């Protein structure tokens, strides 16, 4: 226990001994309001798609995994993508994805960039040239058009950050109404130790954007300028 830590805590405690009651009175006791809920599962998907599109994301909807895999391959072929950065296929969770990519002549590379500083730099530099990336999605939020991606084994963060095009595969059953519901969804799936194996949870709402020059909206400043969602019915 460091001296600095004790000194700072002591200073906070001594201040609070004077103002804690005042602050509690100022705090009041407002509870979190409930957002109006969805009518149906279909309405949820509709809303997600419309919010995502409004954020200038694009979206395709597929009746099953085979159709989703085909849609992904078509999209990549249309852009002549031959190297793809991404999560490991089993983490994306589309049956037959590896075979379909191989048949189309597209290599899927797991974005591994760990270890010594020089090794990391070399790895990220190599991945920097990839034109597109693909990942799964843990849960999506309808009302805000948000994707949540949890890092972990075979689930790199760079797969949704580095390439100019990010394709995200969402299962329709993983679309929920609100941010609160999304977190609850994750807590149910992974328990209270949500972060034991995952150092990163990212909420993505549309393409990377900025308005820093004269408030003119410009996309793709650091992250992907194009984000495409493939929604798979299940």
């Amino acid at each position, binding site marked *: 226990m460091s001296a600095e830590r004790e000194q700072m805590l002591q200073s906070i405690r001594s201040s609070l001994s004077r*103002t804690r009651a005042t602050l509690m009175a100022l705090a009041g006791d407002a509870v979190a309001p409930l957002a109006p809920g969805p009518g149906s599962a279909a309405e949820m998907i509709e809303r997600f798609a419309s919010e995502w599109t409004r954020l200038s994301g694009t979206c395709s909807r597929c009746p099953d995994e085979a159709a989703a895999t085909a849609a992904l391959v078509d999209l990549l072929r249309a852009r002549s993508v031959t190297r793809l950065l991404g999560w490991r296929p089993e983490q994306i969770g589309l049956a037959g994805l590896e075979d379909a990519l191989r048949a189309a002549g597209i290599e899927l590379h797991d974005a591994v960039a760990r270890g010594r500083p020089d090794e990391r730099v070399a790895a990220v530099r190599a991945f920097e040239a990839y034109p597109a990336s693909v990942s799964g999605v843990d849960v999506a939020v309808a009302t805000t058009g948000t994707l949540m991606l949890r890092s972990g084994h075979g689930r790199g963060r760079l797969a949704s950050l580095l390439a100019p095009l990010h394709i995200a595969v969402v299962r329709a059953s993983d679309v929920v109404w609100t941010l609160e519901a999304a977190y609850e969804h994750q807590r149910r799936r992974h328990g209270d130790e949500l972060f034991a194996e995952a150092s990163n949870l*990212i909420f993505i709402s549309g393409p990377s954007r900025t308005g820093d020059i004269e408030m003119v909206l410009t996309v793709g400043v650091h992250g992907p300028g194009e984000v495409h969602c493939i929604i798979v019915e299940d």
Partner: protein
Amino acid sequence: MQTLPPLRERVTIALEDARLGELLERGTVRYANARRASIDALPHGEALRDRARTIRLTALANLDRYIEQLAGNVERRGGTVYWASDAAAANRYVVDLARRRQVRSVVKSKSMLSEEIHLNAALAAAGVEAVETDLGEYIVQLAGETPAHIVAPAIHKTKEQVADLFAERLGIPRTDSIPELTAAARRVLRERFLSAGMGVSGVNFAVAETGTIVTVTNEGNGRFCTTTPPIHVALMGIERVVPTMDDLLVLLQVLARSATGQQISVYTNLVTGPARPGEPDGPEELHLVLVDNGRSRVLGSEYAEALACIRCGACLNACPVYRAIGGHAYGGVYSGPIGAVLTPLLQPDLPEASILPELSSLCGACQEACPVRIDLPALLLRLRRDAVAGARPAPHVDAAVPQVPAPQAARRADTRLGKGVEQVALHLWALGMRSPRLYRWGARAARLSGRLLARDGRLTRLPPPLSAWARRRDFPAPAALSFGEQWRRAREEQP
């Protein structure tokens, strides 16, 4: 910072800059309208603000408990926590770490706290180059300036100015195209992200129950700073802690809406410890630097409520004074109404910090806009009182314990002279208000002399001893007839 011109001069320069006025008007009005629309779009928007206020003030009231819980959980997840009681300690820690790891290049995502403690200068002095990666911050850094707005640092720049700056500093062909300018910054900064030895980020919120550090960006630079470099250093003011993940979700919704009118920012990045074994990417080390730098002192004062601020910038956009003069006139790191409160409290050594609370019309628009409803007008009034009273401690607190040093009252001669005059004037006023005849006589005299002194319908100059007052203000010339006289005349003319 040493060559900061006096406040009056800064304000005058800003007011005379027509282009600045246009940029400020356009930017702040658009942000303010977007904020209003996005809160109104929610049926429970106002209730969400109430909840946000309860969360922030409850967190402050129990800061001792939550900050310990946060630190414990960050360590449990493999992070290192450093407790920095002041700016010097925080800078020393980061510089030492950079030295020990032989870091030469640092990428930074937006952190107002790092501006407050002047981290970039400390790193530069140690031969470490720190590059700002938020586009607005990058522009401001290239120009050798400080942010003019909490969320839009380059709000004061035209695209032509950015074009000149980039042509000169980046050596690119001059272009006024905003997409091309943005692409140029992307190219330069991408190279930095790939090779930096350390990423430094601010912290929008930190969640005590999980040890999670949250950074919010639209550009994705915050993600890069916390992913590609082997070391992530997160700088956090101790007041940024929130108790639970559910609390965080409420605050994220009001933050984005209040800042830019977005429902949620593009990237909300939740970091809990360094990369785990087996994770394919992410930093090997995570250091959380908890910075006090005057905050615990403020926490024990009657200004504690100011620590509830979530740095959304809504009060800047709403403030008629900020809209007219912009951020640089304030002189400190924080501007607008919240800056006029925080600067005297956190940067009391800044020249004239104690008179910043006068940069307000007390109209209340700031409190109205504040997502956590901080009573900014009341805080500004108390600071004015303290500035007049000199170093006297705030009354309701125990004088035996160390206080927020009342900002040195940097009173000038004219204000001191003004004080005596003010008292005489108030006595005369009281006398006049008690006698209708005296009042009418006094008002007529003031009206007549006012009209004589006015030029083009404005009173810009007054004879001594009122000259000091009028030097900083102008006033419309009084009407020829008082309201009472007009009323009587109108009634006489009625059939």
